[in-house]
């Protein structure tokens, strides 16, 4: 009957491609879905922007006097805090950004994606790309707000894309961690507990709010291991002093490598979780 007619037509129409050749396109379409979803939740976008604004306003005022402590490296605490807030928002956006995969799994959407002839890796890279886009947008808005509040940016216009690049690379490290957790833990409650447990120590063992040499020694040692520090140091230079090429190169390399490692780990854990 017509069964075979359709069959051969279908086989002709969709040539068999290897799974790697479709990775970029598949990544983009998974990302497209995430961005559409995000766009549909205007309140979420609003909250992710209003929160840093409040921090900027509050912390700038509350801790203004810290800047007066001898040895404090910035003119005003707000100048000092602005890159800290960019990284903080990046941390939250990244580490919560991958958790949606748990809902996709529970609602059966993940299975539907995986029944399609897409690259398995695209499920991970697509979500990471969406987080990168979201982070770049947020960092840009916070940067604009900070300027409007009188924050000084020493590196000038050329420093802006570098600032965004640092934020995006950092977001990929945390998105990777988030997706690893999402691949291993299938209960949303357990996941939230772990993520909440992680975020605060990550903040306070970095130099987001305090210069390293004003910290206790043990804390300063931990801060060296914290990926946040590798984004904050070069960002802070961009704000306070301008171009510190060595620090910038070190930050970019460490963040890019960590991001790649986390991406690989997330894809591998994710594939294994689907076996």
């Amino acid at each position, binding site marked *: *009957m017509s069964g075979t007619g359709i069959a051969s037509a279908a086989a002709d129409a969709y040539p068999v491609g290897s799974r790697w050749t479709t990775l970029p396109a598949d990544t983009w379409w998974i990302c497209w879905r995430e961005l559409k979803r995000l766009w549909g939740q205007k309140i979420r976008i609003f909250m992710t922007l209003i929160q840093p604004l409040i921090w900027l306003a509050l912390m700038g005022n509350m801790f203004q006097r810290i800047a007066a402590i001898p040895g404090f490296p910035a003119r005003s605490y707000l100048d000092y805090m602005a890159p800290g807030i960019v990284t903080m928002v990046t941390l939250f956006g990244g580490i919560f950004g991958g958790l949606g995969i748990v809902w996709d799994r529970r609602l059966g959407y993940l299975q539907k994606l995986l029944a399609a002839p897409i690259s398995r890796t695209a499920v991970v890279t697509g979500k990471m790309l969406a987080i990168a886009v979201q982070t770049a947008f947020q960092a840009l808005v916070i940067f604009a707000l900070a300027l409007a509040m009188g924050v000084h940016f020493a590196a000038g216009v050329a420093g802006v894309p570098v600032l965004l690049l640092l934020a995006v690379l950092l977001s990929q490290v945390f998105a990777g961690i988030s997706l690893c957790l999402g691949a291993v833990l299938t209960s949303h409650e357990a996941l939230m507990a772990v993520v909440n447990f992680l975020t605060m120590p990550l903040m306070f063992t970095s130099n987001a709010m305090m210069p390293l040499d004003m910290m206790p020694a043990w804390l300063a040692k931990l801060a060296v291991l914290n990926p946040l520090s590798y984004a904050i140091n070069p960002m802070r230079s961009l704000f306070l002093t301008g171009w510190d090429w060595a620090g910038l190169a070190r930050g970019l390399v460490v963040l890019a490598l960590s991001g790649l490692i986390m991406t690989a780990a997330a894809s591998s854990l994710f594939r294994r979780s689907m076996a």
Partner: protein
Amino acid sequence: MTGEAIVETEELTKRYAGGTLAVDRVSFQVKAGEVFGFLGPNGAGKTTTIMMLTTLIRPTSGRATVCGRDVVASPHWVRQQLGYVSQDVAVDESLTGWENLYLQGRLYHLEPAVLRQRVGELLATVELEEPAHRPVATYSGGMRKRLDIAAGLIHRPRLLFLDEPTLGLDIQTRSRIWEYIRRMRDEHGVTVFLTTHYMEEADRLCDRVAIIDHGRIVALDTPAALKQALGGDLVTIRLAHPGPVPGGVGGGRPPLDRPAGDGQQAGHEAGHEALKALAAEMARLPLVESVQPGADSTVQLVVREGERATPVLLDFLSSRRVRVESVALKRPTLDDVFLRYTGRQLRDDEGAAAYHRMARAVRRVRG
């Protein structure tokens, strides 16, 4: 119909990590162009089987080929051939209906121009043109399921897997979905593999049905043949009272080991004995194939030519002065086939679950 096998399994088995043997050495073929059904209660292994065939989980042992290729060796190729509509309604609520279909087409790597046209056609087919640009969050359950099925067809697969396509839907939506499934097969030659625990659905929709229970296929044939194999029509007679049995026919037999209803008293036990004796006599009447005395003073018979056999049975009972409370004559259904092969009613699971829920609720209230 070509009759060539489009799905073929040999001793296909899945044991989950926890130790559950979900699918146990299942072998069957689905022929190109047919609507093939897996009928079985919850937990029978239907979804697990579909997930192995759609490359979502790996078989523990055994073999499965889809469109001629092994699912484990060529998963990517197999995915391109088939459409899959899972038992979860897997549409994205925050996208519109149109966007859901468009995304699905992109994931099957369709050309944008072809895809746009096809999205339009499919939205028309499943009657979702009007709400197409509303977020799916505003859709009813039936609308979501129709969208989900349309998504499974976006790349015009020659083989479509539908896992419980009408689960929890109202009667109207259900018959609409049956209509789509028939049209896909008739107009586009799509082979359909569906699972269901609705007997009526399997009966009306499927060319062939495999009855699956505890991970095993217990029967596989056309619905007509399965029902015919039962040997005739079903007559259920409820007696006004079991009545005394004259002549001691079969009186000395040991009691059946099947327990009566819900553990009743000795008086009832005697009644059951009498009923059994009566049943033994009825088994010797013309046209009667088999007799089974049941609980509650009922007798179930399989008879040839039910219309002619029923008066014979009633005559016999009145000659024995047994009063009859009611008689039911019906053609066998797949429910009866299921009962025959598994000793349980297909609806038992649902009924039992509902009963336990109610019992718990009552206990809580009384608590």
